[in-house]
């Protein structure tokens, strides 16, 4: 690539400027960082800040949820009781397992086990895919029962219940979109792990992707009780 920031060229520049020569440069060290530690810290802080923006992004939806739940508690109970708690609960279990395998994959990278990374990353991807398959059947069920907001929404149900389902679809839909992105990231990470990219000195990408994965799980941990268990809690 004809770019001044091409890694090799950048290294020439760094060394020509008499940079700290105490330790040899790791091939994965980008030109504008002093050390591998600085690079890792920057990427981890970067991911945390990105997650803050994600929290604010979902935050707007949670605010709408709180406002309407306060205004229409009855519709919220009724809407919640239309959701399939077993499917939701099963999916919660699946995601918690995926978080465990994710952590194990990061650990495997830190101790230098290539097999450990590959096995755990594949398991993480499988758990994530299971979640999406279950979600697909849940959505299909809602279509059959006329619970999708819009012109086909069951006219017998009150307006606020349609708002409940609008929020349900937007919140779980955006969450599912994050799962799809997460699985895509994990496929890239798996390819890198397969090639033996990660070592105890260089494991930033897998660690940072793990943070993202856990965040997406935690969003679900909040969505599940707020949407599915609410009916048990408030109604009947």
């Amino acid at each position, binding site marked *: *690539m*004809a*770019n*001044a*920031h091409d890694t090799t060229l*950048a290294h020439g*520049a760094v060394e020509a*400027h*008499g*940079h700290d020569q105490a330790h040899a440069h790791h091939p994965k060290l980008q*030109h*504008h*960082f002093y050390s591998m530690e*600085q690079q890792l*810290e*920057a990427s981890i*802080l*970067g991911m945390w*800040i*990105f997650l*803050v*923006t*994600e929290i*604010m*992004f*979902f*935050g*707007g*939806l949670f*605010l*709408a949820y709180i*406002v*309407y739940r306060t*205004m*229409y508690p009855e*519709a919220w109970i009724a809407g919640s009781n239309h959701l399939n708690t077993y499917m939701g609960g099963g999916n919660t279990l699946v995601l918690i397992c995926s978080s465990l395998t994710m952590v194990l994959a990061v650990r495997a990278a830190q101790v230098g086990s290539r097999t450990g990374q590959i096995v755990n990353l594949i398991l993480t991807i499988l758990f994530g895919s299971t979640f999406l398959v279950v979600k697909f059947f849940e959505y299909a069920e809602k279509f059959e029962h006329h619970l999708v*907001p*819009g*012109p086909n929404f069951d006219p017998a149900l*009150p*307006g*606020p219940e*349609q*708002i409940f389902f*609008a*929020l349900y*679809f*937007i919140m779980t839909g*955006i969450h599912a979109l994050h799962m799809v992105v997460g699985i895509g990231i994990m496929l890239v990470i798996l390819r890198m792990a397969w090639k033996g990219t990660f070592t105890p000195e260089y494991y930033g990408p897998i660690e940072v992707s793990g943070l993202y994965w856990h965040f997406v799980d935690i969003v679900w941990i909040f969505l599940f009780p707020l949407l599915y268990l609410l009916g048990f809690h408030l109604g009947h």
Partner: protein
Amino acid sequence: MTAPAGRHSYLDEPHGVAAWLLTRDHKRIAMLYLISITVFFALGGFFATLVRLELLTPQGDLLTPDLYNKAFTLHGIIMIFFFLVPAVPATLGNFFIPIMCGTKDLAFPRINLLSWYLYIIGGLMALAVVAMGGVDTGWTFYTPYSTHASATMVTLAAMAAFVAGFSSILTGFNFIVTVHRMRAPGLTWFRLPLFVWAHYATSLVMILGTPVVAITLVLVAAERTLGLGIFDPKLGGDPVLFQHLFWFYSHPAVYIMILPGMGVISEMVAAMSRKQVFGYSFVAFSSLAIAILGFLVWGHHLFMSSQSIYAGLVFSIITMLVAVPSAVKTFNWTATMYKGSISWESPTYWIIGFMGLFLIGGLTGLFLATMGLDVHLTDTYFVVAHFHYIMVGGNVMAFLGGLHFYWPKMTGRKYPETLGKVSAVLVFVGFNLTFFPQFVLGYMGMPRRYHAYPAEWQVLNVLSTGGAGILGIGYTLLFGYFVWSLFKGEVAERNPWGATGLEWQIPSPPPTFNFEQDPVVTEPAYNYKPRREVTVG
């Protein structure tokens, strides 16, 4: 654009269009941003011209009511999302934050480039909106008009703002990580230039506020396209919830549009007065205070939207508190100039222009924060004049002043000094003539967003349109000599203003990796010696 012969700078290697479009150099990305925001400024200015020409006469004779609605909406959307928000951070901030932090680049150079591409994609979507018939909701996209009544390109316009929002998030994100993790040895937090503090505070607002407006615009788009009626009153939904969510970002966004400008002014005041900034830590913390308080005042946009009067009271009081850190800054800049060795070069003219206009804009903000008075002034030209004084009088003045101050460093060329002063005066006079009459009009009750008005308000409207003409001449003049200077301007030395700071110790224009040697910082910012002669070079 070429650098002076015989030097190797970021501008001339590597060559080629592809090398520019795929660059990860923060300085080149800043230049790409500078060119793009100039295009959008011109486009937003075109729509402002339509609005002002229509208001030349009391009758609606130039534009139909529908076209007028589209003209002011497009003016607002383009100027806010595609010019004012990125104006200072994405250009001057992008260029100078890594240099002021003593590092070779921002923490994530590729994400920085991605930010520019997102901006361009959002911008192209905005252009598509213009080409496909425009949008008429006002830049605020208020529901239920935007979701149920408007038959214009609301969804595409909202998505354009959404995409541009992510470009702004990525800029803020990069700045925060850079300031935390990339500072040179010896560069402690309290040795950072105030420019960096201001951008840090801006970045906090960008990352905390922008995602909220992003999801809100998604909800509007979902309501229009999929029928997911979150704000639909027919279902029991609450349109005022939209206003809360919208202003939770869009009020802090005002501080995205002014804080970086304040940072620029802090640098310029110290350099042009050759004095340490008075009360450095107060100015630094006032940036953070403005950012934090900025998140607690959004309800002052809802005084007339059925908000509880007690909520209104609290929002009113907190809004007034914002005046405290703003006044701290203004007083401290003045105190910095007091007994300083002020050099009357063109940046000084822009500084003083900024301070005058920001002062008027800030004080009239207090009028509007007062709930009782705001009942009278809501949605009048008083509001329009107030926020133009802050955003255009404040931020654009600071941005253009900053361009005059940093132009020699960024391009290696000098602009004609006299014309720099002339354009500052033209912009200052033109601006006041445009917007001061609008305070009077608003106080007399002229509502915003109407294309016709009673005949007795014509004199003031003609003054305003005439002022806009002078403003336009000022902007055109400075655009002309900046472009001219790229080819014919005198070659600039390292430190034309005799200023302190890492950015003035490296060549003009800087080399690709900024520093010939990794810098070590040993003294506080603005360590000006009390002397008149300036050692240059």
